[in-house]
């Protein structure tokens, strides 16, 4: 008899993984040939992709520092992927040592890797769960142990929502998080788009195709569509902008034009 269908899914390492592809873009070696192959194909149609990913990371770091400046020291990073360097907890804990960070990912390898990297760091935790199931995330042991949901939390959805289809109702899940989080909580969000950067809609479609071929979806959304995710949050200055333009550390004119692709923003729950 074969394995019954009710058993948990195994890991198929012959399939590319979004988080390992991401690592490849960032120059890491936490990836396998299938991942690199998929990543190379994506870079072929969208040559600036690694730069865009670095821009995502840079935005995330600036936003985390902003959060700490605002007194928010609890972080819930969903779709955190494989931690390499410059992760949310490093940035946050560098700014304030007692910052607490819970990473959430639905990729079992990413989760296992995160556990290994974070071992010994008392103020961090890892949850194997999916953004589409907010209750599983919010009810998890690490969240209950590390985060005080009566106080503001920064919710990080960096380069995540463009993998969630409309029919999976990302807005609904987001609303559940919004409703649970305390006033003063922050939503830190980036999203892929062909708006803003030098890339064409055609390229957007092609890269979506590449991701579809590896079993994921990459959805280009328009600015109004991304803006809608901030429903219930008040955007802080400078609003929803291309990532390098969000509170830059240095003059943005030195940046590669490609990194102006996509949007990033931070919203505060009133």
């Amino acid at each position, binding site marked *: *008899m074969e*394995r*019954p*269908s*009710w*058993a*948990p*899914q*195994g*890991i198929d*390492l012959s399939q590319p993984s979004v988080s*390992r592809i991401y690592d490849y873009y*960032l*120059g*890491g*070696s*936490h*990836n*396998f040939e299938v991942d690199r192959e998929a990543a190379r194909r994506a870079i072929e149609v969208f040559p600036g992709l*690694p730069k865009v990913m*670095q821009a995502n*990371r*840079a935005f995330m*770091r600036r936003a985390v520092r902003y959060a700490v400046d605002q007194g928010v020291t609890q972080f819930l990073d969903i779709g955190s992927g*494989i931690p390499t*360097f*410059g992760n949310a907890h490093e*940035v946050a804990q560098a700014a304030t040592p007692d910052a607490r960070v819970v990473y959430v990912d639905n990729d*079992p*390898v*990413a*989760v*296992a*890797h995160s*556990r*290994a*990297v974070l071992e010994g760091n008392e103020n961090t935790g890892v949850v194997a769960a999916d953004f589409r199931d907010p209750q599983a995330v919010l009810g998890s042991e690490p969240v209950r142990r590390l985060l005080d949901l009566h106080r503001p939390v920064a919710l990080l959805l960096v380069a995540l929502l463009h993998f969630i289809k409309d029919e999976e109702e990302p807005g609904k899940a987001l609303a559940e998080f919004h409703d649970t989080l305390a006033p003063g909580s922050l939503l830190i969000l980036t999203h892929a788009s062909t708006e803003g950067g030098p890339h064409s809609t055609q390229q957007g479609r092609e890269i979506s195709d590449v991701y579809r071929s590896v079993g994921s979806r990459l959805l280009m959304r328009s600015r109004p569509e991304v803006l809608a995710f901030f429903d219930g949050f008040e955007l802080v200055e400078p609003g929803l902008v291309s990532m390098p333009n969000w509170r830059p*550390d*240095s003059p943005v004119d*030195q940046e*590669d034009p490609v990194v102006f692709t996509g949007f990033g923003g931070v919203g505060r729950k009133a």
Partner: protein
Amino acid sequence: MNTGPEETAGPGGPHPAGCGPHPDGLRRFATIWSRAVYPTTATCMTRAEFEEHLVPLAELLSSTLHARPFDPGPARAVGTALVAAHCTAPESLPQILGVVDAYLLLYCADPALLPPEEGRARCARLQHAIAAGFARALQERTRAEQESLSRAALAAQSEIERALHESETRFRAVFEGATIGIGIAALDGTVLETNRALNDMFGDTERHHLSSRKVTSWVHPDDGPAVWRMYDELVRGEREHFRTEKPYHRPDGTVLWTHLTVSLLRDPDGSPRYMLALMEDITERRLLHLRLRYEATHDALTDLPNRTLFFERLEQTLARGAQTRFGLCYLDLDGFKTVNDSLGHAVGDQLLVAVAERLQTCVNGPGQLVARIGGDEFVALVADPACSGDVTDLAERALEALSTPVLVDGRELPVRASIGIVDGPAGERTAAEVLRSADITMYRAKAQGGNRYELADPDSDARVISRHSLTNRLPAALEGQEFFIEYQPLVRMSDGSVEGAEALVRWEHPRHGVLGPDRFIPLAEHTGLIVPLGRWVLEEAVRQACEWQVRGIGGTRPLRVNVNLSPRQLSHPDLVAETVAVLENAGLPPHSLCLEVTESAMIRADDAELKPLRQLAELGVGIALDDFGTGYSNLASLRRLPASTLKLDRSFTRGLQHHPADPVDLKVVEGIVSLAHVLDLSVTVEGVETAAQAEHLRALGCDSAQGWFYARPGPPERMAVELPLAAAH
């Protein structure tokens, strides 16, 4: 290789730490270096931070450049540090080395300490060392990352395997420990797995009875008609599951009855893969159910089907519609009560058992059923007889079978039975109607002397049914005040004045309308309800007469009321007392009441029965001999009767309706009138319908009359209106 700008660093002495150049030179070098390398890094440092990060590296390169003896080794650390700063992209290295090659000597060397030629040679060596350190660090980092990724993958995999194992262990325990039988089969019917409960159900401890056979071989003769069709639909993926009761052969030859649920299991693509069967052993429950059902539908004494089962079958038979026929024999033993009363119930029961056995031998077809539906009542149902003859044959066989006496306790008991037969097309009557008809017909057979059968006949059914239903309703009718009284005036022949009225009771039947006394008085007489009904009529009529008198209707001579008295009332012990009480309560003088008793009732009565009448007559109550001339009166006995009036039956006066009158009738009536007058009886004639009749009767000396010629019976208030009319005749 050194194509850099002209040296701008000012001359300076040798550096105490071995790094000779101007500090500004190092800073500028770092700026140029950062500008070249930063775009290729994946660092999380800002540009400024990155440039700051490069300053110590520039210092290290500078000091290594000037060191004596010259050893390029420490420059490896620069490559290592740059890898640590994530300058790992392939295009980083040319940028790193290009800047060293072009600007290191220019900004970081002290020409005073280092001759240009030696400087260039040393710079090349340093680049080699940086590249080696870079390569080494990158190699180490790549290995470490690959290893950590593999560890993570392995950890994740073993975590999942552990969870899977746990889940499988859990489900295995559920599967094995379930009290419900579970089996999984491939779509070709091969049994793949069965759990313990299922094997136990089949009594299959070695587990090969089940697993060695295909599902499709589990056919049982008692399978429901749809089971295998549903099975095929499931296998084809047209049905997700089905539920049924299904029997199986056990290896030991017994039958296992199950409540079976089969579900289709599909693979992730949705194509059918397995069948999952869940089975519950309902053998015991089913047996119990069958036994309870048998007990509920069979007579405990004779083991014949009982009333419930009989009605079920009768209803099924009748429901088949008019294209089929049915036949029913309703059999009741004659004189069974006597057997029970004289020989005891035990003997009666044995007799019933013997009768049941004999009747059972009379039915021989599949559509025939014998049932016991009451004490000594049996029925035989023939589902679709070819002709009426089939049913009468059955009745004859039954009578024949019972014709030999039954031996009970050494005593020969003769058995007689009456049978009512109903047959006809199904679908016209309800089961209850059919059985009632059979019951009526059976009573007809009994009335004919018993030990015979009779065939149902719609007319006699109708008569009996209406009698029956009226009788049943009488008490409620009395209770519900459905009776009312009409009054027919009695007219004095001498002057045409009204002397009184006869009270005639009517029944306002809710379904049949107004019924005359002939329809229900005999029934009331039969059931004894006549006593209360008669009392009510008397009270009502007396009260009414009183009212007329009070209102002065009838003029100076008070009106009298005539009330009929039935034979049963006549023999009622309280007749006198009640009548007196009624008169007294109403305040009506006794002579204003006349009780009419039929001639036949009066002449049948002995002296004791006449005594109450005599007492009433002595009190002044008038007594009329009703329907005189119909009862073969012994004329001589008229003298001893307490009557004061003869009411001559209408049959005598019919011949007088026209001119000329029938001469014989004239003579007869004349004779009766003169005889009555001799005996001091007045004569009242009933049924006067024509003026000629009235004229003849007056001429013959009749005292009073009633009939349609004068007035029909009507409500009491009509008396005031009709009096003058009647008098006008």
